[in-house]
Structure formats: C-alpha cells, structure tokens
C-alpha cells in the first residue's frame, strides 16, 4: 500500500523527529510511504482565526498535492480534522455564496482518504500491536480535535497498551483542553497559561515520566509549560513511542 505522509507544516519545521518516526513505523508495518515535496499547510490557522478566504487556496493546494494518493496519513488530529471536517464546510460555504461547486469538487477526493495516524493504524491496517517497545510510564492526553472532531475514541490508548514495557497511567481530566488553541495561546495568554498549568499538574499527579499526545502543537504548549514549571516530565508524540523498538529504542 502506498500512502502519502501529510506531516503538517508545524511538524516539518519544528518536529522532524515525529516525521521520521511515522516513516519508520509505517515502513516497518509494510506500508510504502511517500512524502510529496509540494505539501505545505492545510490552512487551519487561517480558517480558525477568521481568514477563511486565505485558507481556500491552501486547501486547493492540498488537494493538488495529495489528490492522487490512495491514502493520506497525518500525525495530527487537528490538521486531520481540518481536512475531514472543515474542507467539506468550505465547499458548502462557497456554494452558498453562489460560487458554484468547483471548490467542493476540488476538495471532495481528499476528504475521505485522509486519516490521522492512529486511525490509519487501527482502522485501515487493522493493527493495535505495532511491535513497539518503550519502557516508560506514560500518560495520554487526547487532544480536542482528535477526540471530538475525528472521534478517535480509545484507538490511541489501545495502541499504547499494546506497547511492550509501557505502563499507561490515566490522566485526570484527560478530555479537558490544554489551552493551546492556535492563536488563542497568544490572544488569551493568561487563560491559556492557566489551562496549560492545570493540565501539567494533572499530568504530574500521575507520576508518569512521559506525557503522550497525537498533536505536536498541543505538546508544544504543554511541553513549554512543563519546561517552565520544571516538572521533569517529557512531552512525546505517540508516533515516536510506536516507532520505538527493542532494536532501536527511542531514548
């Protein structure tokens, strides 16, 4: 199976390790991974900040780059939700504004074949034990868009539970937002910081070494708060845990 990795602009620029982990993991599971070099950004930041018209060319660009692939896999619940939930909405809005079906038709092909990583592993590949080894205590934070827009449910936790050596600890208040919210973290910095601090305190209360999530932007916010609060916990993307093996463990 040949799939396209939609890494997302944030991961490409700031978290290349996550990208390498996805490639390693999927290759190990027999998937032929391609990284279309034309990819950039899904347009979520533009859309959610209120610049829908700026997001449209980016959505079209996404469809141009990924349209031909059998499946598109992304290690981000948030960017996955942008394609799956908001691209159809952009098409509908264009139609409602009397601009016809062109945008909807352009975006339609990529919508059903875009998968968040854990969804792809469980639903498409049908695996929960990916042969990973990670000898740490881990607590899992389900990020909002993965949880509510994509409905990932317990897929990530099932994958983590199957990891050898990993001890999963329940995170109190797991389904509460960490306070990142894109530009929210800057526009409403006080509230965002308070939410982040509460999330970190809840994570600390589990005594786990690692806080795991499926979105690096949320992890950037939580990790940045952890660093400032000197917790000693580490934020780690789920792809990196699932890619870690006994032969090549993630340190």
């Amino acid at each position, binding site marked *: 199976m040949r799939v396209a990795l939609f890494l997302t602009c944030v991961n490409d620029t700031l978290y*290349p390790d996550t*990208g390498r982990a996805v490639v390693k993991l999927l290759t190990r599971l027999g998937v032929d991974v391609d*990284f279309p070099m034309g990819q950039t950004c899904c347009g979520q930041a533009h859309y959610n900040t209120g610049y829908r018209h700026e997001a449209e060319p980016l959505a079209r660009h996404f469809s141009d780059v990924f349209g031909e692939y059998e499946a598109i896999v992304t290690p981000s619940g948030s960017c996955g939700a942008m394609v799956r939930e908001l691209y159809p909405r952009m098409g509908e809005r264009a139609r409602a504004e009397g601009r016809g079906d062109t945008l909807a038709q352009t975006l339609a092909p990529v919508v059903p074949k875009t998968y968040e990583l854990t969804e792809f592993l469980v639903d498409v590949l049908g695996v929960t034990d990916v042969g990973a080894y990670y000898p740490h205590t881990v607590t899992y934070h389900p990020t*909002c868009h993965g949880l509510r827009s994509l409905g990932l449910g317990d897929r990530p936790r099932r994958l983590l539970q199957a990891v050898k050596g990993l001890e999963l600890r329940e995170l109190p208040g797991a389904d*509460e937002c960490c*306070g990142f919210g894109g530009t*929210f973290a800057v526009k409403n910095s006080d*509230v*965002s910081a308070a939410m982040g601090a509460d999330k970190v305190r809840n994570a600390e209360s589990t005594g786990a070494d690692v806080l795991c999530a499926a979105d690096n932007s949320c992890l950037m916010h939580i990790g940045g708060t952890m660093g400032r609060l000197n917790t000693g916990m580490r934020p780690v993307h789920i792809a990196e845990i699932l890619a870690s093996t006994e032969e090549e463990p993630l340190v």
Partner: protein
Amino acid sequence: MSGTFVGMPAFPKAAHEAVHNATLRGNLRHATHTIRSKRAKAVAEVSDWAALREAGKQIKDHTLRHLDDYLVQLEESVTAAGGIVHWAADADEANRIVVELVKMTGETEVVKVKSMATQEIGLNEALEAEGIHAYETDLAELIVQLGKDRPSHILVPAIHRNRGEIRDIFAREMSEWGRPAPEGLTDTPAELAEAARLHLREKFLRAKVGVSGANFMVAETGTLVVVESEGNGRMCLTLPETLISVVGIEKIVPTWQDLEVFLQTLPRSSTAERMNPYTSTWTGTRDGGAGEGDGPQTFHLVLLDNGRTDTLADEVGRQALRCIRCSACLNVCPVYERAGGHAYGSVYPGPIGAILSPQLRGTGSEIDASLPYASTLCGACYEVCPVAIDIPEVLVHLRERVAEGGQATRGGNRVVLKPAKGHAAERAAMRAARWAFSHPGALRTGQRLASRTRRFHPRTLPGPGRAWSETRDLPAVPAEPFRDWWQRTQGGKEAEAK
C-alpha cells in the same frame, strides 16, 4: 443590552483579574466540575438522549424558520385568553413599555422571577430611574442584587460568591431592602436560605405587580412556561394582580407536545435533575378576564426583539437562537472556568455568550469584537449542548466578521461591516503566510533560514509572541527540517550520516 456592560474592556483584559484570583478560580472550578459530572450522569440515564437532542434542534429550527407565523399565532392565542401583547424592537422600547405598564397600576414596587431578558435590557435600572423598585426573588439573583453585583452564570448567577460572602451581604444589606437578616446569622446553607425565605415572603405577599421571563411560549394556546427550582417563580406568577412577562421572540414552541422534549433535556442539562421541582404554566388572565380563579387579573406579554431578527438573518449564526439557557456549555468550558462569567461583559457568559452577545449587540465594541476569540475551539460546548448548537462553527464565523468585515444585518438592514480595529498586522501576517504556503520553495527557504540561525534565536519573543514566552519555553528549532532529511536520505533509505 444592559447599560451596565457598556465600555467593558476586551475579554483577555477582563479575564486577567479572574485568572489570577485563586479563590475565585477555586470556587468556579469546584462548582462547574460538580455540576458537570452530575449532568453527565443524568444524561447517561436517558437511552434516547441523542434522539431528544436532535428533536430539540429540529423543533427549534422549524420554529425559527416560521417565526413570523408562530408569533402571530401566539399573539392571537394570548389575546384570546385575555392577555395584552406588546412588541418591543429594542431594549429602550421594552423598558419604556414596562415602565408605563407599572406606572398605570400606581405601584412603586415589583417582584421579579429570574429573567435573563429583563437583565439583557437593563429593566431594573430603567424602573429605578422612574422610582420603581424591582425585587429579585431568585435566591442567587437576590444575592447578586443585594451585593450590588452582576450575575456571572446563566443558572447560578452568584456562582462566584462563597457562603461567607453571602452571609456578609445578607447581614449588611437586607435591612436596606426590607426585612433584615436574623440576628447572629451564620453561613450554613439552611440559615442563609431561611433568611432569604423570610425576606422574600414579605415581598411576595405585598407586591401587586410581578415581572417574569419565560423559558417557553406555546403558540397554539398562548401559554407561557417557567421552569425553576425554588418556587419563587410560582409565587411571582400567581400572587400579583398584574403580571408582565418580558420574553425574547425566539422562545416559542408551536405546540404543547413540543414541550415534552425540552422538559426532559433542560433540567438534565442544567441542574442535572430528572425533572425540575417547579414547572409553572400560565395562559392569559384568570378565567380569561372574568375575574374568577387563580392568577393575575391583568396579563401583559412584551415580546422582545433586541437583535434577534438580525441574528435570525444570519445563516450560520442563527443557530444561537436555539439556546434554551441550560448553561451546560458554561460548565464544561475550560475558558469560562478560568476567566469567570464577568469577563464576557454580558448577562450571557460562557460559550453561548461568546456567540450570542456579538450577534445581538453587533461586533462594534471592544468586548464584543473580542468574544469570538474567547475559546480554544475545543468543542466541549458543542458536545454537551442539548439543542446541538455548533458553537465552534459560529465562533469561527464571527471571527471572520471581526477580522475581515463583511455582510451582516443590523436593525433589519443589510450592512457591510469593516474589520474591527487592531487586526491589520494579523491580516498582513495571514496573507504573507498564505503566500509562503502557496509556494513550497519559499516555505523551504524559510525553514532552512530558521534552522541555520537557530543558535541565535532569543529565549523570549518580542511583540505579540511575548505573551507566549512569558509562561512557556519556546520549542527549539531543529538542525534540519523534515523535508531536507527526506531528500537527503531518500526517505530514510540512504545512510543517515551527513
């Protein structure tokens, strides 16, 4: 809306104090988490919750689509039952009507059952200006009124007050308004409730005029419905000779059968009760004006627009008018939990307030332009909403209106709004980012530049980014962006060594 909220600062500024007030945050956290988990349990008991939610949404949408017809039907039914219907386009008109009606009775006191519509228009202040005293009879509203305070929650207006504060307010203020608090009042809930009961009983028995809101209005019979927990509503609705109900035009349901849905979803969503303690319904005057039976001799219904028709004209935003004021969205909202209700600058705080206020009032003021951004778009509010209002969708829609301007309806006219002040730099940045993202080569150049200069990156950011780096460490820029690694190693197939 109420004059008391004019000139509020933007949400982030208004929230600043609450975020750093540990007692307030503790009170809010405790209260919202308690109601939140109780609600989840009460909802889980109902096997057809999803169907009820969908039915509520459909009934409300259908009614809003035919609102003109149902309003006319309601007016006919109310009139036939001996009531008098008044139409108020805005807050001033509604206040003028109510003041006139009270003056006609010759009374200078009215008792009130909790009504968000009258808070929205600032009725108490308008009555006070004409020498008429309005007494709030809901316990929490009484606390807010005696404390010269503002409500901060839809269902629990005094959620920001603890027992000690309430005791102090009662002991200090009750004598100014009527029966004083008992000597040696403590902060036990039973004593506080008893003090309020004694104070209020005197008001109920004396007042000749009652002012109410309504949770629902049934078009087919002209019946109004109030759903409450304390019984104060029933006292206000049955004892006074004159009853004036001020209700938003969106509160209509077509038939009694439609109530079946909401009388299940509202109590469970709001107070986590299977059924609320008091559901009062009233139709016109006692015996259709013949003077027999229970209830008021004179009944006035003031139908309030105040921005609702404008909201209805907006295809995305109109879903906010489905709201049945249960407050479930407030109790799950992580932003409300930290910022408190006052920061929203409206009687409608929390997620619903963030989409309702900027539509009812327009996005012209600083506070209204900032409300659509008072959310992380986490979606918890949409998940719990018993009438399925997609609050995140409306927030983004209103963000667009604020950031880029566009068409809206104000005062019944289509207008073209200019972008709100303070968004020029952001707009330019978004445009530049869109350009870079439309040109993969430009993105790549930028990434490489960031990687090569990474040793010189500051630990803190200037400008808007300062807000980030004050409380969070910045992520370190890697030595090589992913796409360079991919190309260099042919997707990891070639040797890693540089």
